[in-house]
């Protein structure tokens, strides 16, 4: 009995989640990094709440980008190192399904986790509770897009010994639109203006990467496997 792509997707997501939860330290690292970086800003800047509030969206977004990047390096690397990537490539499902599942699982344990802890950080930075919904939506769209951009970068650098710096150099410039629209959405919501425009842009970027990045990342991995 053959296995359909949906079952394969579910199986790979379960595998990735189980692997993540067997290594709680690696699961918590990006989150702790996120918390610490955002805590450092108020210490380094003045303690004026108004200034902090003006900078908060930018700080939040830069910290979220950097902490998502931390774990991107390992997206395909451990599988490539121990030979399981070859097994996955030959499982008869096509590598694209595997890439989609792995990237989605990666987003669940990093991006979604960041979104869930972001209200804590936002409160510390003086962002009013009324904009949490907008902020979390924008972070959710942004981190998902970033996971996809990262999947392309991780696919390209998986064969390199020290690929993580190169990975940042590839991904961060591509993430600039996310930072601009993501911070703008939160900023606008804080000043009481409609954030819809910025959110639409983020959603468009998210759809764009979700639909095309799987093929780019798969192609990058195929090159690496050869």
């Amino acid at each position, binding site marked *: *009995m*053959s*296995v359909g792509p949906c079952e*394969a997707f579910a*199986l*790979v997501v*379960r*595998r990735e989640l*189980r*692997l993540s939860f*067997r*290594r709680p330290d690696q699961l918590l690292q990006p989150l702790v990094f996120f918390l610490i970086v955002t805590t450092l800003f108020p210490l380094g800047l003045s303690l004026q709440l108004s200034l902090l509030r003006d900078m908060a969206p930018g700080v939040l977004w830069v910290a979220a980008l950097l902490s998502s990047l931390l774990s991107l390096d390992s997206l395909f690397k451990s599988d490539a190192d*121990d*030979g*399981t990537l*070859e*097994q*996955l*490539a*030959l*499982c*008869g*499902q*096509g590598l694209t399904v595997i890439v989609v599942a792995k990237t989605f699982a990666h987003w669940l344990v990093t991006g979604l986790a960041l979104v869930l802890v972001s209200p804590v950080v936002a409160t510390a930075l003086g962002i009013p509770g009324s904009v949490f919904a907008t902020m979390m939506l924008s972070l959710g769209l942004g981190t998902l897009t970033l996971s996809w951009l990262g999947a392309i970068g991780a696919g390209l650098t998986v064969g390199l010994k020290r690929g993580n710096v190169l990975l940042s150099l590839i991904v961060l410039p591509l993430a600039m639109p996310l930072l601009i629209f993501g911070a703008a959405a939160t900023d606008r919501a804080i000043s009481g203006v409609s954030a819809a425009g910025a959110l639409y842009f983020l959603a468009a970027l998210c759809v764009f990467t979700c639909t095309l990045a799987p093929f780019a990342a798969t192609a990058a991995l195929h090159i690496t*496997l*050869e």
Partner: protein
Amino acid sequence: MNTPVDGLRVEKVHVWRGDRHVLKGVSLTLASGQLLHVSGPNGTGKTTLLRVICGLLRPEQGSVSWRGHPISSVRGEYQAALAYASHEPALKGDLTALENLRFAVGLKRRVSPGELRASLEQTGVAACADLPARVLSAGQRRRVAMARVLAMNAPLWLLDEPFTNLDAAGTGVLTSLLQSHTEGGGSALVVAHQELVMARDMRRLELTA
């Protein structure tokens, strides 16, 4: 050489790695029920040949076909029919042996934990089923990898140095598995330095530098 329509056919495959001409026109056929032992000194492209046959590596010249079709045109069907064991055991250290098997074999076919345990039993590592793969010895890991090949229920086995790290008993188990696999109509291509002692007739291919 007549064409076995039911099997694997590799025709005049050439592969260059950088400036190095690794595979120089290798041809082989493998029909059902056959076993092919590929040997040769280090660096003569045995693993490269296996990766070309799997479809992981595209040859610069030549072709690989499965049941009369180029493997690139029947990729899904071909991958479902093959079980590949690479030089590394390809196990996740944080998952148990059974979980490793479930996630690897489960992508190929629907499989029950009972079946997976049975294949671990056959390779003699049933006791390790619930241990994380990282605590297993190299030989035990090799046996778990062999159980994965077995559980895939695939007609075509492609094994890269499957005897590495195996003790005498493990070598015996693997030999008898190969025996029963080919007797049941399956085919196997084994890359190994050791001599294979088989009751069935076995063909050899010696790669040279």
